[in-house]
């Protein structure tokens, strides 16, 4: 049998130390954040109610709710989604189904990576220069959504590509063999079988777009704009709008004497929306993994 010597015991002890140090590091990253999130919720608790969501900010944003920014964020997210989804899905289809290993494909992949790495404020400058000024759309929901769409594109491309790559090659070959064209194969077999993965990407994109501030600051979001409470169609495509993220920035830095609970409440709603949406994506992904059709 294996005999425990002084040396092996020391090794064993050493290994345990390392494990605990690493565990401690991990916990040091995670635990404070969980505490902070609870602290935010605790601070926001007095103000969180349905009314808070459905009332406009009033008295110079020192009172009332977050209806206008909430609806603005919904508009921005949905419209950027409408723009980015077809482009992103088709781009992923190109990269996964059509592109061959070549320098050109490498350049495209590099561009996607770089697009993801461009600072959000530079995206803002681009949106301002290209959409607001050059295209003449003006500061509007449309211009801001287009900026957001380009910014969130890499998220969608990456997860769609992953979803497409998970569909077995044999399915495609079977379709080609019976005379289906490439697009027929993609439309009938590849896309339907990767739909949940693509959906995950779309959800992640929603969460990303909902939280961004810098790209919409100069392209369409404003500090304050009152809209009809309860009217879901209150904004027009070429209107400027409020947005949750921008609103949080405004009331926590730009407006003096805001009651403390107000920014906390806004932060919690924003955080809640983003985390819930992300959690949805994670649940969906776990579901896909456990329930494969093939």
């Amino acid at each position, binding site marked *: 049998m294996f005999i425990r010597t002084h040396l092996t015991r020391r090794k064993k002890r050493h290994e345990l130390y390392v494990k605990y140090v690493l565990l401690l590091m991990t916990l040091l990253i995670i635990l404070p954040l969980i505490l902070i999130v609870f602290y935010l919720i605790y601070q926001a608790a007095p103000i969180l109610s349905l009314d808070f969501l459905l009332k406009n900010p009033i008295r110079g944003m020192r009172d009332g709710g977050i209806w206008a920014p909430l609806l603005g964020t919904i508009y921005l997210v949905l419209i950027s989604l409408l723009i980015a989804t077809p482009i992103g899905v088709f781009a992923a289809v190109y990269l996964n189904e059509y592109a*061959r*290993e070549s320098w050109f494909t490498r350049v495209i992949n590099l561009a996607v990576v770089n697009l993801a790495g461009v600072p959000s404020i530079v995206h803002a400058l681009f949106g301002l220069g290209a959409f607001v000024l050059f295209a003449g759309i003006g500061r509007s929901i449309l211009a801001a959504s287009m900026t957001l769409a380009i910014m969130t594109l890499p998220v969608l491309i990456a997860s769609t590509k992953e979803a497409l790559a998970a569909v077995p090659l*044999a*399915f*495609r*070959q*079977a*379709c*080609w*063999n*019976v*005379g*289906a*064209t490439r697009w*027929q194969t993609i439309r*009938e*077999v590849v896309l*339907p*079988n990767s739909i949940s993965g693509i959906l995950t990407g779309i959800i992640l994109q929603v969460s990303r777009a909902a939280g961004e501030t810098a790209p919409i600051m100069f392209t369409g979001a404003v500090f304050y704009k009152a809209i009809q409470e309860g009217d879901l169609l209150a904004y027009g495509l070429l209107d400027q709008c409020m947005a949750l993220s921008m609103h949080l920035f405004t009331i926590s830095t730009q407006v003096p004497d805001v009651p403390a609970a107000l920014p906390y409440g806004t932060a919690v709603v924003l955080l809640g929306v983003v985390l819930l949406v992300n959690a949805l994506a994670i649940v969906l992904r776990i579901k896909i993994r456990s329930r494969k*059709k*093939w």
Partner: protein
Amino acid sequence: MVSAAVKIDVRDLHVYYGHKEALKGISFDVRANEVFGIIGPAQSGKTTLLRVINRTLEFVAEARYKGQVRVDQEDIRQVRNVFELRRKIGMVAPLPVGLPLTIYDNVAFAPRMAGIRNREELDSRVEQCLRQAALWDEVKDRLNTLGTRLSGGQQQRLTIARALSHQPEILCLDEFSIAIDPVTTMRIEEVLKELCRSMTIILVTNLVQQARRLANRTMFLFEGEIVELDDTEVIFSDHPAQQKTYDYVNGIFG
């Protein structure tokens, strides 16, 4: 029994994967309505050959080929509509691939992609193909269940039904019995004997006895070259032209 009309004519076919030469200049022809057996060990280029004929080799990025392949006297490189060519050829892969669709949709897939929308026509086509593949009786009550739920042998017959669904003139089977039991294999072999009356069959097989049972002529392919091509009786006789053929057929190597 064997009609003289040439269905497929291959002349000096070379296939390269990158720098590797998979087929080294082979020439042969397949006659109409015969069962043409291809035997040979793994990696000898059998699957590659089938992929050249229906031009799906194009989907393999690093592959290219030279030489001439004619189907019905028409050079496959010059066909106007490659999808028509592929529909003329039914292809059955080694492992059954049930598309993740219902049984019905699996068989109706090819006709639909070819533009047939009429429900009655699709219904009769599906029934006919499933009957031809000897699967109809087993699945007629559950056409709307997923094709992937079937057993391996049933899935392979479903694959055959799908390959028949676009009414091919040539049916290529690539080691179709590799994943199924002997009883099902025998059933499918019966089906093939039926089918060869109306179409040309290319039977690639790793079971030499299968070629012996079914094929009119047999080609022995080894490392990208034709060792011998002759009537099946000759190949399986005690003295084929090449010693190597005798050795392979009798299990001395391979």
